[in-house]
């Protein structure tokens, strides 16, 4: 990288995959940097703008992947891009999931909709190093079955030992699984609750109710982590957009522990 930390590095789009009707997973490569699961990168569509996205590929992959929902101008431009196009990327930024804490412990991942993106690199990393960690359970919910991301990987995850629980707010088609919000399946995983590390990401309202329910179920507050989102312009704590109550989401987050989340001001805090 050159003089300024704000200048992205041009990388080619390798592949684009339609994940759900409104979300595409783009693969770019070769990856310009190493990262920890849970960290994010700033992705630039040249001439349009820049936005922060969670990296959703495993750290051992030679490429980088981002699952991107069509929302604003940058995401729309990414959806309109095709393989071979050049986009800019800089990172990795922020504090990732606490891998050190997870050693030898059971791990529960709770995701909602597109909020599974930052959990996927963690899950894949845990599976690749499964001898270092305890049991792994995943509770994943979406508004409808078609909005569940990474569906084609579910089988492989389960084969490799993941306890996977799915739920949707509204069933459709041949959906035979659970119907209800993600908190309705949180009691299903059979884990050592007091010792389990929980990582969650999703819309703020989901995080709020998931955190409440987890504490009710007996998970320990000091073991619960959530990844938050915010508008960002720099990713390195200078532009001020993600500054809330003394914390920069881009530097001190996006992964926060339960007690840190409780101290954030209302609005950015899901509570």
């Amino acid at each position: 990288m050159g003089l300024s930390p704000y200048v992205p590095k041009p990388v080619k789009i390798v592949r684009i995959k339609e994940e759900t009707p409104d979300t595409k997973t783009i693969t770019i490569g070769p990856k310009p940097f190493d990262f920890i699961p849970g960290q994010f990168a700033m992705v630039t569509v040249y001439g349009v703008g820049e936005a922060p996205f969670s990296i959703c590929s495993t750290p051992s992959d030679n490429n980088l992947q981002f699952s991107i929902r069509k929302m604003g101008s940058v995401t729309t431009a990414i959806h309109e891009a095709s393989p071979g196009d050049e986009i800019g990327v800089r990172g990795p930024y922020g504090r990732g999931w606490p891998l050190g804490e997870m050693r030898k412990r059971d791990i529960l991942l709770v995701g909602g909709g597109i909020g599974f993106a930052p959990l996927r690199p963690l899950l894949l990393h845990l599976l690749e190093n499964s001898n270092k960690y305890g049991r792994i359970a995943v509770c994943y919910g979406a508004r409808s079955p078609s909005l569940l991301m990474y569906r084609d990987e579910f089988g492989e995850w389960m084969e490799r030992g993941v306890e996977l629980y799915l739920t949707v707010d509204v069933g459709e088609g041949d959906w035979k699984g659970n119907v209800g919000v993600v908190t309705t399946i949180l009691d299903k995983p059979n884990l050592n609750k007091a010792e389990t590390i929980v990582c969650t990401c999703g819309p703020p309202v989901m995080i709020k109710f998931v955190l409440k329910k987890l504490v009710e179920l007996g998970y320990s507050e000091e073991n619960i982590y959530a990844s938050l989102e915010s508008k960002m312009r720099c990713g390195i704590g200078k532009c001020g957009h993600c500054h809330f109550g003394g914390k920069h989401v881009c530097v001190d987050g996006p992964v926060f522990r339960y007690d840190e989340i409780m101290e954030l001001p209302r609005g950015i805090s899901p509570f």
Partner: protein
Amino acid sequence: MSSPEIELRKLARNLLERKVVDLVIGYEDSEAGVRPCFIKEPGEVEKLVWNPDCRLSLVRYLRGFKEKKVGIVAKGCDGRAIVELIKENQLDRKNIFIIAVECNGVYKPVKYGSSKTRRQMAEYCEKCEVRVSPIKDYLIKSDEKALEEKIPKGDVEDLDWLSLFRKCLRCMACVRSCPFCYCTECSIEGFKPALVHRLVDPVELFTFHLIRAIHMAGRCVECGACESSCPVEIPLTRLYHELNEWFRENYGYVPGLNLEQAPPPLVFKEGEKP
């Protein structure tokens, strides 16, 4: 305390006590200068002041209280703005109690870093012909007056508008203080892709000011809120005055004088050529 102030406070107390209005928007004195205040309790009316430093139009605050009955202290220009906004369906006449105060001109603000500290009447007040709001629920007579000291000025054509707009900080003070800028999204921000690239080229700010000027033609009541808020002293009211003159010559319309005459851009006449 001047007698208009005594009358104003008495009236405000009366309106609030009888619950004719939910709140009165007026001016109060503070260390930072005269500023808007929002009186909800009869006990607070002693805050209200009236003097030639009451320059910021309070009409822009009305859109924040659409469901409430509001008493508002209005100068002649402010009353005209209310008239025009009622015609544009932005305000409801029956929700507004207009406390018209006779205005004889306000001071040009002496701000941070001003090199001249002498007080002068604002330029736009010299051109003003409407000293009392055309519609009113109560009239307070006043002879409070800004010292009339003419500011030397040239023709609007003589001004180098490009270099004036080059100074623009795009701080939005002109937009945000204007009674007529009620768009929820301004051309200069919020649009994706951007209508005006505000960070890219100072010339684009010229585009923004042109957009704004065109929208002000035939509507601006020359209250000077934009000009007096502007940190780099761009004489915006002069530009809008010129456009208003053009409008008066071509359409015979002067904004804000009465509730009956419809604004020409809102009227379609059969056989009219575009």
